[in-house]
């Protein structure tokens, strides 16, 4: 059974078709890269998959469950996690608190108005584990305001990993990072075990191509080419989209 | 029959006053996304200023219409000062905007009480409009008809401003998408001050025009503000047509409600607003959900 199946997904804003009949079939454990020029509809596709936008047509299946009409929060509980292109963390809090909120979102404890969140040893411990996986265990108690952009990106990834997702959607995880920071993030991503399926949008081809197994090229909301690395890179339509007009 | 017709004319007159008050409120809300809780105070200030000019100040008596224009101009300057020196400093901070606009309305209310005392002040109907209009067997007060005419003139002028001028196009663009307007290089700064001053002037103008009908008294600010608010929620913020329709609906509900179900008059007044909120949260003619 596939980890994520998208069938005939469409979305338009006003008269503009941002997503046109997109089909994706992503196997468990796969590393899928989605590329395409600016405005190809990549982030919209992510927002449709996570449920932040409602599609006009088509279906989305997560591990065999039809989630087309379920709200975002249900998809999170079914094992979908994402990071954002624009970092959207809780800026007034510490790193560990951010990760704790991610963990709490899937725990029944989130409805509890009586216990002290900071004393929930299990949550804190899991939070530290998630941070250790991205190499931030040593600064867990640092306020987010005092962290670098690259560190925040890794906190984003730690939050997503803390949710123990089956499918992880990464929206441009390398964007805006320095070479060193890029290497750090790359290391985190390589260390993610195979029971997590990863779908990644990325512009930065050097890092992304190395990471991905299959690549989908999106252009004007449509899937133009799909295949393994060599197939997509060698396809004339890829060159047309990226180089020629 | 006569009773109902007279009630209808009163409703339209009240709706016309509400339109003058709410049109500016709607534009300010639509363009700047600011809940301008001083709007009732601006109405009251206009009414008191105008009443003072008409009833005589330092031995000088002014013509009603000149007084109305002077009051509107003064309050416009006051509005521009509030926008430029206070609200300008607080973009995107609704809590601080609420605090500062309420603070100003407290100050204005107390200053008015100090300057004009607690008794209602009557404003004489301008000479020439004191009579009645006879239509068939019916008799209507001329001034109420005149108020309707004034509101129509102001409404058409506003429509021309919004629809036919460059400034109007910029305001409309700003209402539709403030961020985009900024990106395409519309100088929102000057525009905001202008719209705020215009809204203040309209509110003040409504205050003095309404003087002969409502009189002027302490507390009229808190009486008018919620009505303006309901008009905007009903019609949709930033929409001129919405202000027209909203004002008329509220004008009728207010007058007929008082006459038919005095005990539930306010409930009847706010009920359509709740329905609109439930069924069409952006308002009847609004473009965005606030």
């Amino acid at each position: 059974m596939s980890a994520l199946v998208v069938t005939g997904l469409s979305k338009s804003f006003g008269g503009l078709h941002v997503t046109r009949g997109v089909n994706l079939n992503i196997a468990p454990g796969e590393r899928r890269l989605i590329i395409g020029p600016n405005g190809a509809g990549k982030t919209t596709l992510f927002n449709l998959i996570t449920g932040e936008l409602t599609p006009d047509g088509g279906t989305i299946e997560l591990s065999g469950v039809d989630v087309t009409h379920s709200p975002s929060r249900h998809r999170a509980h079914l094992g979908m996690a994402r990071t954002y292109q624009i970092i959207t963390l809780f800026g007034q809090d510490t790193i560990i608190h951010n990760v704790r909120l991610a963990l709490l979102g899937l725990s029944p404890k989130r409805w509890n108005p009586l216990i002290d969140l900071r004393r929930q040893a299990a949550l804190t411990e899991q939070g530290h584990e998630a941070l250790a996986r991205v190499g931030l265990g040593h600064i867990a108690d640092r306020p987010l305001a005092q962290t670098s952009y690259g560190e925040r990106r890794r906190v984003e990834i730690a939050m997503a990993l803390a949710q123990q997702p089956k499918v992880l959607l990464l929206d441009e995880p390398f964007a805006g990072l320095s070479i060193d920071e890029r290497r750090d993030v790359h290391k985190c991503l390589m260390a993610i075990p195979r029971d997590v399926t990863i779908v990644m949008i990325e512009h930065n081809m050097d890092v992304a191509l190395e990471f991905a197994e299959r690549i989908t090229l999106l252009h004007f909301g449509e899937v133009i080419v799909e295949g393994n690395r060599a197939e997509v890179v060698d396809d004339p339509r890829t060159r047309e989209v990226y180089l020629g007009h | 029959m006569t009773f109902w017709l007279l009630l209808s004319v009163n409703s339209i007159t009240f709706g016309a006053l509400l339109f003058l008050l709410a049109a500016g409120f709607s534009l300010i809300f639509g363009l700047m996304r600011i809940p301008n809780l001083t709007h009732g105070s601006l109405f009251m200030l206009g009414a008191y200023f105008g009443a003072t000019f008409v009833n005589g100040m330092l031995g000088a008596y002014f013509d009603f219409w000149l007084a109305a224009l002077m009051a509107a101009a003064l309050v416009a300057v006051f509005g521009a000062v509030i926008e430029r020196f206070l609200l300008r400093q607080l973009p995107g901070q609704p809590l601080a905007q609420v605090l500062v606009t309420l603070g100003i309305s407290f100050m204005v209310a107390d200053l008015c009480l100090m300057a004009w005392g607690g008794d209602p002040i009557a404003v004489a109907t301008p000479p020439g409009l004191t009579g009645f209009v006879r239509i068939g067997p019916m008799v209507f007060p001329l001034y109420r008809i005149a108020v309707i005419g004034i509101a129509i003139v102001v409404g058409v002028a506003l429509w021309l401003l919004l629809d036919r001028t460059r400034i109007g196009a910029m305001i409309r663009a700003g209402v539709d998408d403030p961020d985009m307007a900024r990106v395409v290089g519309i100088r929102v700064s000057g525009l905001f001050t202008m719209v705020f001053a215009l809204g203040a002037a309209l509110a003040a103008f409504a205050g003095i025009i309404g003087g002969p009908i409502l009189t002027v008294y302490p507390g009229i600010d808190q009486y008018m503000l919620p009505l303006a608010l309901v008009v905007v929620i009903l019609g949709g913020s930033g929409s001129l047509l919405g202000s027209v329709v909203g004002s008329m609906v509220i004008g009728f509900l207010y007058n007929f409600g008082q006459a038919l179900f005095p005990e539930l008059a306010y409930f009847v007044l706010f009920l359509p607003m709740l329905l609109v909120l439930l069924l069409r949260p952006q308002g009847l003619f609004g473009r965005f959900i606030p």
Partner: protein
Amino acid sequence: MTARLAVFIIAIMALVTLPQWMHGVYYVNVASQILFYAVFALGLNVLAGYAGLVSLGHAGLFGISAYATGYMLNLGYSHSVAIATALSIGMVSMAIYAVLSLRATGIGFIMITLALGEIVWGLAYRWISITGGDNGINLHGRPEPFGIALTSPNAFYYAALIVFLIALAVMTVFVRSPLGAALMGTRDQPRRMTALGYHVWLIRFFACMLSGLLTSIAGILFVYYNQFISPQALDLTASAEVLLMVISGGAGTLLGPIVGSTLVVVVKSVVSGYIERWNFLLGAIFVAIVILMPEGLVPGTVRLWRAAFARRRPGPVVEATEKAS
């Protein structure tokens, strides 16, 4: 930490012994008013501070419970029945408020709650057969919990103090709890919270209910204190006043609403004895707070204190504030 504990113990001692050192019935009564307005402000702070939902119609809810208490007592029911009914009606009203106003956030929420507050005011003012209209409802007597009559100012003060301390304890526990953290998350990043698996609407609804509970309790204390309720207690000015208490003291802090209610009640009842234009003064104070300490008195003072502290002892604190700014 120990310093904080010491301040807390001193504050409690001062509050408990207040009738002994505060001479004059008048000032004990002022203290009682501060306490129940603080409960009201703590209730509104759940929404305005922790949920980021600014309500300008809370005096309506406050008034509903106050009117319900008065109405039930005048029908001849006992204090306990009246209080229980008032709380239930207050909570049901809050639920209706919440369902209608949670369709929006931001300015939309302000507008809807304002309109709802006006509806309640309009009913209180005009539905004379139930509310007595402008004449309001008069009460006769206060309850006697465990046989202790609350008729004297001191006894009422202690009752208000107990209720206030319970409310403060509830809030202290709540803001540290997972649900409290989730609520603050929905204030800062609602979209993110949804993607993390939280039911944002329901969390906000629960926040409304907690807010409504504290507001109803404050309304009941208010009507027992004054032995009277009229539409004036729930008009727009009243809603504005309690919101100003929260914002001026510092929305989203535990102490802010308490400081804010102290400020407003003291200006209204004590300073007004000396300065005729106290309303102007109150307005001017609010404008000054926005200009000087837009985050409110409590967080603003903390900020100034830290800045002064950091200047004297340069070290990691300076570094932290520089990076944060």
